[in-house]
């Protein structure tokens, strides 16, 4: 499987280190009230590891991803990819949102190509565009505009667009949250396939406990107000995982318990 996938060497990922990161926001305009979104968050992700972050809404998950992406900056603390400090957004860290955010004025092919254009390497890496279109199974749709695509297809284009620049870390901000249950499971397998082919370091933010258990090497559980990492769970079951295996279900109820949704 791995060999048939995209050219380039597997193991593209880099380690990621988040050290004591704190971030606050103005709670209301024109007041001095600040909300603490992240309070001393620290964790590391190994190169090529798949890590999920779950937690209730407003626990600072998305804020954390924006900081790692370099789209926003922490009040204190440090963020590193490998040994390099993160100083701003670049193609090293790809980001996929819940809304695919495809550029509506570009066809599927040109959307996928846009990262190469932005980096000024579109000409020499032109062949990769077709490979990525094939990789996400959209051969017949290359010249279609995004408004013709279904949600699942659009999200696959967004994944291909984020991966074509060969990021060291791929940040996924609830990318499958808007898909129906069946499409979601299908795209989950596709994400795993892409990950296994490239060993890009993956950091997935999700609401879906099953998704986190199905996909991750480790799960970080966050608690809100202020956002903190409460617990880290390691999983070492072989993939593909059985969603109805007793271990799977036991872990599921354990996490629910931790998030305070278990039977009381």
């Amino acid at each position, binding site marked *: 499987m791995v060999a048939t996938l995209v050219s380039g060497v597997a193991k593209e990922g880099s380690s990621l280190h988040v050290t004591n990161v704190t971030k606050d926001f103005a709670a209301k305009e024109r007041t001095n009230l600040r909300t603490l979104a992240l309070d001393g968050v620290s964790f590391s992700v190994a190169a090529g590891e798949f890590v999920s972050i779950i937690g209730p809404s407003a626990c600072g998950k998305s804020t954390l991803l924006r900081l790692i992406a370099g789209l926003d900056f922490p009040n204190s603390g440090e963020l590193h990819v490998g040994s390099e400090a993160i100083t701003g957004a670049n*193609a090293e860290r790809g980001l996929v949102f819940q809304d695919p955010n495809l*550029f509506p*004025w570009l066809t599927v092919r040109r959307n996928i190509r846009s*990262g190469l254009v932005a980096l000024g390497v579109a000409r020499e890496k032109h062949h990769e565009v077709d490979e990525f279109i094939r990789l996400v199974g959209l051969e017949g749709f290359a010249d279609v505009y995004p408004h013709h695509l279904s949600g699942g297809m659009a999200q696959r284009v967004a994944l291909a667009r984020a991966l074509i620049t060969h990021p060291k870390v791929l940040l996924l901000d609830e990318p499958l949250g808007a898909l129906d249950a069946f499409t979601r499971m299908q795209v989950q397998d596709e994400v795993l396939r892409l990950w296994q082919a490239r060993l890009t370091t993956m950091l997935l933010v999700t609401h879906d406990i099953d998704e986190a258990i199905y996909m991750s090497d480790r799960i970080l559980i966050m608690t809100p107000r202020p956002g903190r990492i409460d617990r880290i769970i390691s999983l070492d079951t072989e993939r593909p995982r059985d969603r109805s295996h007793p271990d799977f279900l036991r872990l599921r109820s354990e996490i629910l318990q931790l998030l305070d949704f278990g039977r009381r």
Partner: protein
Amino acid sequence: MKELADANEQAQASSVTKRSPGPQKRDERPAEKVPGGTLLAVPVAGVVALGLHLFTAANEPPAEALLYTYFLSGLLIATVLAAAIQPLWSGLRKWMRDTYPLIAAAVFFLIGWELVTSILHLLPLPYFPGPSGVLLSLVNDRAVLFDSTWHSLLLLLGGYSLGVAVGLISGICIGWFPHARYWGMPILKIVGPIPATAWIPLAMVLSPSAMFSAIGLIALAVWFPVTMLTASGISNTRASYLDVARTLGAGRVYLIFNVAIPAALPSIFIGLFMGLGASFLTLVAAETVGVKSGLGWYLSWAQGWAEYGKVYAALLIMAAFFSTIMTALFKVRDRVLAWQKGVIKW
């Protein structure tokens, strides 16, 4: 699977629309017969118009009367011919179904016009000549009218493209750079709303030639809406598009030219249309007061000699001229914004 289901749904949806009656039905089946009423409307209107004209022709100057007779006869022959060959030509049938009612209405308008002017003399001369008088002016003065149209076109294109170029640049700067916004917005807010024609007295003093000042005035009239709507389009670019582009490795140039400007295009086109309307207005005004050529000049010159047939002839040419340019801009927009869902058709 979802895609398959979607495709299925779409197929069902389209078959439903095909079956259901409604306004769309007309366009979907071009091979259909032209209704008898539609087919007859124009020839009947033509016969009535011709009969009425021949009835009154004796009272009119012979050159005028004869030309209009030719015009109506030509129209009648063409429509009868079209009706005769339409069973063999589906493209013509579609065109006839779409436009024949409108042509019939236009012929009835000519009938009404001739009735109230040449026949019943309800409107005072020389301000309201009949259709035959206007047609004669149009034909006799064709060389001058053509020349005027050409000069108007040059002036319009010069002023419009200058205004669009400057407007796009200032709009992009104001929309993107906070400093340009801080210093540019007050100028835009104060200078922009002044109608360009209000600058005519100043323009006459400042500029070396009337032509030059007219181009400047048209450019000014175009500049304001283009700048305003470009700036608002750029500054309203969805933040998530910019975020995505940054994580793809985009620098400032890519963000401006490959994200913000395409995202702003729908808004920019609204500015281009508003600017075009303003440019027509300013063109005619500038030609009426300073420039010694063009349709606006011809209009006021004909009015000066009380030749109202020529005034209406100039108005007719203007209608065709401006409408053609407007249509051209719509065509450009439809092509550039093909990626958008549901754009307004012209």
